[in-house]
């Protein structure tokens, strides 16, 4: 009589697979998800790439033009400026948010406050509000006679009052600041969660060694948050690069194109008067490649230290 433990072992031998090796039946389990992914992600992606090789107004028969759309894309100043603007947005959505998030995390872990859950919820809130609502709120906030300018005038800084989203120099920064406001809560929550996993004995050891708050942060907290940092950087960078709704609802790319970004230019070319679906598809493809490359590099970074 074989013991119960023998039976699975016997089966494994029969199937000729090493213990723990994946079984083919596993593919069956991922099939539903895979089908959806193929149908709603990979297939449209392939379609987009295909369309990018055509000149098409959305109605008339399309015409194969090879890589002409891409050649035009690389020479298009508006597109180049758009990618430049998107990079600047990364500074606001990602870099500034992460720095702010880290700062708050350091504060909250070093000096425990009462009602931490409350603050965490409040600071995370922007992440949960629909972008359209956020955009409308900030349009009001930035208005020429809006609260921000009124505040500056009230404290005697009227020289610093601007038309913000209507100002050539300030529009992109003003939109970027909205991005920071939206994403820093997410970063902070990620970092706080990560910091709680850090072994408390490391902090004790640091304090025994006489480390101050700054030293402790640099030597213990920061290295312990490596994975969270990568996740935060990836998420916020992608948000920055593909941001469309925020631009569309605040500046529509203005003034004078100062806040045009690739996703907005894609929308404009495909659905607005130019009716250039193929060209828009080429922009979309370039944007997808850029975002994938960024995600890949950041992913490598996270593994590099392990």
């Amino acid at each position: 009589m074989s013991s119960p433990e023998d039976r699975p072992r016997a089966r494994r031998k029969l199937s000729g697979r090493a213990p723990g090796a994946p079984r083919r039946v596993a593919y069956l389990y991922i099939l539903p998800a895979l089908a959806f992914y193929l149908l709603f992600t990979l297939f449209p992606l392939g379609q987009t790439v295909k369309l990018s090789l055509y000149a098409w107004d959305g109605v008339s028969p399309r015409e194969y033009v090879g890589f002409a759309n891409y050649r035009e894309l690389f020479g298009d100043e508006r597109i180049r400026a758009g990618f430049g603007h998107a990079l600047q947005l990364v500074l606001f959505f990602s870099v500034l948010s992460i720095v702010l998030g880290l700062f708050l995390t350091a504060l909250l872990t070093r000096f425990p406050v009462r009602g931490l859950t409350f603050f965490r919820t409040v600071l995370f809130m922007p992440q949960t509000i629909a972008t359209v609502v956020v955009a409308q709120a900030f349009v009001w906030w930035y208005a020429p006679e809006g609260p921000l300018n009124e505040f500056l005038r009230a404290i005697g800084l009227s020289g610093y009052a601007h038309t913000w989203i209507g100002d050539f120099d300030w529009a992109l920064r003003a939109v970027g600041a909205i991005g920071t406001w939206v994403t820093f809560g997410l970063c902070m929550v990620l970092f706080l969660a990560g910091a709680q996993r850090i072994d408390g004995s490391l902090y004790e050891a640091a304090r025994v060694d006489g480390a101050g708050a700054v030293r402790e942060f640099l030597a213990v907290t920061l290295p312990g948050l490596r994975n969270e940092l990568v996740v935060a950087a990836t998420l916020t960078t992608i948000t920055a690069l593909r941001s469309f709704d925020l631009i569309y609802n605040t500046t529509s790319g203005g003034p004078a194109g100062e806040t045009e970004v690739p996703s907005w230019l894609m929308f404009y070319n495909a659905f607005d008067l130019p009716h250039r679906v193929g060209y828009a598809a080429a922009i979309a493809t370039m944007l997808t490649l850029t975002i994938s490359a960024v995600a890949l590099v950041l992913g490598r970074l996270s593994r590099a230290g392990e």
Partner: protein
Amino acid sequence: MGIPTPSRRTVLALAATSAIGVAVAFTGSSAARPGSAANAAANPFAKYGNVTLNVWSADNQDPGPKPVIEEISKQFEKKYPNVKVKLTFKAFTDYMKVINLALNGNNAPDVAEGNQGYGTDALLVRAKLIRPLDGYAKKYGWGKYYSAGAAAQFRWTPDGKTFGKGNLWGVGQFGQSTGVFVNAARLKKLGISTVHPKTFAEFDALVTNVRGKLPKSEPVITLGNKDGYEIVHAWGMIQGAYVTGKSVRDWIFHAPGATFDTPGNAKALAVLKRWVDAGVFGTDYNAVGENDAAAAFAKGKGVFYMGGNWQAAVLKAGLGSGLEFYNGPAGASGKHVAIGSTSLPWHISAKTKNADIAAAYIDFLINAKSGSAKLMYAQNQIPAISTAPKAVGDPYLSSIAGGWQQLVKQDGLTLFPDWTTDTMYTTLGTEFQKFAGGKESAADVIKHVQADWEKFDKKLK
């Protein structure tokens, strides 16, 4: 606004909320009602049996054009009892993104509005989604409704490349032009004469005079230039003092030898720059949208508003009898020239089986007979056709309707300059914002605008 800009239409919706409805008496209302028994006698469409006419429109503002279209449709159904009109309204920006697809689909509307210019109508013509209306124009006498200059905005060669010539593909219902709205009550308070200036030079002097008397913080001309295009409306009136309507239209139509690089345009840009530098428009304009600026003017900010008559109701609601209107004063030629066109042109789908009924319906919409002019005036809409009865009784509405007719009669409608290429709306917006912001010279503006035009011109050849 490219004019196609959403704003010229959305503003009417605002008018609705402010509940105006300028009451008007008008002439020519005594004509027989179309639904009367006498007219119902002969129904040439009876042979078609029961027919549903699918009609799409972007003129969805109420009060405004929507109730006019609805009421005229009801009258049409009364006259032809076997015809049902099914109306579908969409907001302008949404509408323009789907109309080409809708007309290309299996359930294409029988009658639909397009949009003048190389952005939309050229596409509908080129893709053979709509049919030429020359036969119907002859049948219904539409030739009398529009001057040759005004009808050019509906003309295309069948390949959609030559604009302003060729077949007639649509007709417009309402007249939409730009002019000067004056807060006359405010002028009086400043101790300045409210007599309307006769020439552009007089108007220019008046603007300078007002600048000297108003507080620095307040603009003379209230402007909302967030989309970059609104300042072009004001500029169109300055430009009109130095150029002819035909020269601008030739440029829009890509007539051989046409260029933006003209002495007239350079002079007009110089005046605009002088105004901007003198603070005539204030400092906030790039952060404020057209509708918000109109609302601010209606609340008493500034002395002039230089923009579209589609803002007439909103402005009137705020300023009442203190508000007056006149066309941009004429230059040396003595003729009035300004930006303006009819509302979105009505088209007949190439796929419809009921083109004859569709044409009769379009004639009903535009002919301004049998009380439909009254309907339009009651909704602050100006009939586009030159044979329409005049608005009388309300001096404000009369001046706006008269302003449109004056531009038509003097061949002074330039149409909208963004129609000339599929990217000109953003190009003009960008260039004029940079120009007003001191980032570019007039020569740069002329160079870049003309470069956009030439790039597109090459594609047409």
